[in-house]
């Protein structure tokens, strides 16, 4: 089972990074891969169990469900429900930790999933680079613009 782990340091206090990340319906405002986002059944985006529907930049759609959200730990977990990409049993975790030395943020984004044999390498790279690493860079840019 592939395990993707990416982490970075953001030169911004955790509270500001978390204020952006905690909105499960807000990824279309900063992630380049996401064109639009909506929560199904008009539920609140911090309600555990809510489902977000993404339309990606290439027009395909996917649905993801919020499994856990903690303002104390500054973490959330979610899984894929429907996807155009062969990522199955995909569960991801996002966690922020303060870097007290400099008031910065350590951000870890990881997931495990299953996929047909032969696809592991391609999808591990895609998730790690196009989703997680691209997300890190996008948040850096987003926070710069927000100053």
């Amino acid at each position, binding site marked *: 089972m592939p395990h993707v*782990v*990416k*982490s*970075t*340091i953001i030169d911004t206090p955790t509270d500001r990074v978390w204020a952006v990340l905690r909105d499960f319906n807000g990824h279309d405002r900063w992630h380049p891969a996401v064109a639009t986002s909506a929560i199904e059944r008009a539920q609140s985006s911090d309600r555990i169990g809510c489902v977000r529907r993404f339309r990606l930049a290439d027009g395909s759609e996917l649905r993801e469900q919020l499994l856990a959200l903690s303002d104390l730990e500054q973490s959330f977990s979610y899984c894929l429900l429907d996807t155009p990409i062969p990522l199955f049993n995909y569960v991801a975790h996002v966690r922020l*930790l*303060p*870097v*007290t*030395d*400099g008031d*910065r943020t*350590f951000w*870890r984004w990881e997931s495990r999933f299953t996929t047909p044999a032969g696809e592991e390498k391609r999808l591990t790279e895609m998730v790690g680079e196009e989703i997680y*690493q691209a997300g*890190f860079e996008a948040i850096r840019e987003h926070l710069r613009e927000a100053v």
Partner: protein
Amino acid sequence: MARVFVSSVINGRSDRVWARVRDFNGMPNWHPAIAESRIEGGEPSDKVGCVRDFRLRNGDRIREKLLGLSDYDMFCTYAILESPMGVENYVATLRLTPVTDGERTFAEWTAEFDCPPERETELIANIGGGVFQGGFDALKRAFGG
């Protein structure tokens, strides 16, 4: 119960930073506050349950017991058995996590302990700002930033 959390970013790969800090008897090699250290009973320093007896540069002696050590998760947990600090139930953990974006290491050092309420602020400052941050500053110097 008082709690200390100090974290930093070391400019080196986590396996290299871990090689420097994993030796429970090795603090004099990297921490500027520690003068000398020995493991009681001639036990290996990675045997969980072993006790280190060390002396600080200011002359204080502290005995600490290794409660947990993981080369996989890169953490070390220990408890104070005896010290002049006036703390009870002191348990601390030093943990390293790789930063995949650049060859860096996220380092966390946490402690929980009981003490008289009027001493809590001073102890948190000494342990967090002195011992833990002092250790991270030394690691940052050793790894060039």
